[in-house]
């Protein structure tokens, strides 16, 4: 029972983390058609900000969390302003290559300016403890990850359904030109989408730092690939799809970890992707994506 509960919590926590990062990718993709592979470096900027602040003596976890989320949002907005805005109306492949470019440049900046080696960050270690509920021992980090992700998604849903900018972001995912006809500034809609995307990455960065206790230049890259997969599972561009896809990916990974005998553990990733391929054969548009017929005008 204890073991099952532990694994369930594992799956939920992993899923929540994937969901947060996938939602960040999806918010930007839905309105700009840009797959932002530099999203991982936003997580990197966030984590290195906490590291540098700690090196300067700011060791309060509260400050670290604020800094992680704030710097991630700022980094996302700055990336958009410097790198993505000039290629906004260029073909999608240009945006994709730009994103890879930003990713490489920023990773190299981490290496050159700080260090290629992992650096220890201990300010958030306090989040990672064992909590005991009667006979059950659970990781405080995982519980918090789950609760915070849930609240974040709730806040995002409220923002997208209540505020004018939120409505504009949803509308822009279908028809950007008409959003401008409402007098809403395109730059503002896009900057807001990037800021949201960054803040989500920053929240994920807090949990990654608390779990790993260290930061390295390639910190976010692998996670963004996973988040990309989560988006594909859910249906690219669909926000509920990203959240559901992230959760599902977490469950598939942890499920395989539990189900596979020790000697086959190396096949875990291969099997994960095989399941995803099978899923996409069955539903090519993803779980919650919209089927677009050739010749359809509206995307």
């Amino acid at each position, binding site marked *: 029972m204890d073991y099952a509960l532990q694994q369930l919590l594992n799956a939920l926590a992993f899923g929540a983390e994937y969901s947060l990062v996938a939602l960040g990718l999806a918010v930007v993709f839905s309105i700009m058609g840009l797959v932002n592979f530099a999203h991982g470096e936003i997580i990197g900027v966030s984590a290195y900000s906490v590291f540098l602040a700690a090196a300067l003596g700011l060791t309060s976890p509260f400050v670290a969390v604020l800094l992680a989320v704030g710097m991630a949002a700022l980094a996302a907005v700055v990336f958009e302003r410097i790198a993505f805005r000039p290629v906004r109306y260029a073909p999608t492949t240009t945006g994709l290559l730009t994103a890879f470019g930003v990713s490489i440049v920023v990773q190299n900046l981490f290496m050159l300016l700080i260090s290629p080696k992992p650096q220890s960050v201990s300010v958030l270690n306090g989040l990672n403890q064992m909590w005991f509920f009667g006979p059950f021992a659970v990781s405080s980090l995982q519980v918090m990850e789950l609760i915070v992700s849930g609240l974040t998604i709730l806040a995002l849903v409220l923002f997208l359904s209540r505020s004018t900018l939120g409505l504009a972001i949803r509308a822009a995912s279908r028809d950007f030109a008409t959003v401008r*006809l409402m007098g809403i*500034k395109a730059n503002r809609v896009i900057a807001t989408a990037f800021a949201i995307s960054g803040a989500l990455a920053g929240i994920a960065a807090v949990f990654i730092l608390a779990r790993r206790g260290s930061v390295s230049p390639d910190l976010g890259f692998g996670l963004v690939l996973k988040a990309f997969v989560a988006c594909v599972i859910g249906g690219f561009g669909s926000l509920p799809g990203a959240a559901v896809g992230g959760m599902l990916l977490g469950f598939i990974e942890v499920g395989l970890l539990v189900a596979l005998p020790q000697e086959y553990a190396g096949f875990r990733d291969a099997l994960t992707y095989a399941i995803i391929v099978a899923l996409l054969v069955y539903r090519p548009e993803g779980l919650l994506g919209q089927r677009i017929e050739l010749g359809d005008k509206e995307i």
Partner: protein
Amino acid sequence: MLKVEKLVVRYGAVMAVRELSLEVGQGELVALLGPNGAGKSSTINALTGLVTPASGRIVLDGKDISHVRTEDRIRAGLTSTPEGRHIFSNLSVGENLRLGAAIRRDPAGVRQDIERFLSLFPVLSERYGQAAGTLSGGEQQMLAIARSLMSRPKLLLLDEPSLGLAPKIVARIFDFIGELKAQGLTLLVVEQNAKQALRFADRVYVVSSGTLRYDGPPARLADEHGLFNLYIGG
């Protein structure tokens, strides 16, 4: 209110609008007629700034807005209901109306306007919380016009409000356009459906192949039978 001088719109080598000049006076309803591909929608898109003209001047209320961004033109009091309606199909009817009022800072007035349109178009009231994509074509057109009016524009550009709609519904929509004119709104209506557009028009422009072919009162257009048939078709 609106003055367009020698507007030229190009798409690569194709010239969609050739030195088109037109004027819309305060409180007027001006119809811009012409066959498919005449450059009517390109003209409207140049007026809203969604398309950048190759040359020409657009003056709104005495101010040159040729180089002003779309968003700021809307804030200056011009708006358009685009061809094909372009309602936000994934948003509810109510959310569409709220976005129409995005530039306004008077929530009480916005609520009042929403109430007014809902009583004017009861079907929008019935479907208030539903995705706008589920509305019929005519209902979507009413929503699209209402959404444009939510910004309280001085000048409304209507691009093919009759497109793809049944004659009965087209007549109703033009009744409403006539009411808007009676309330003092200035309108520029682009149409292929000449009969309806001429019902309330003060003046008419006819374009074909991007060039102005006629400029004058509707009555004379109907008299000059050749012109009418040539460019608009009986």
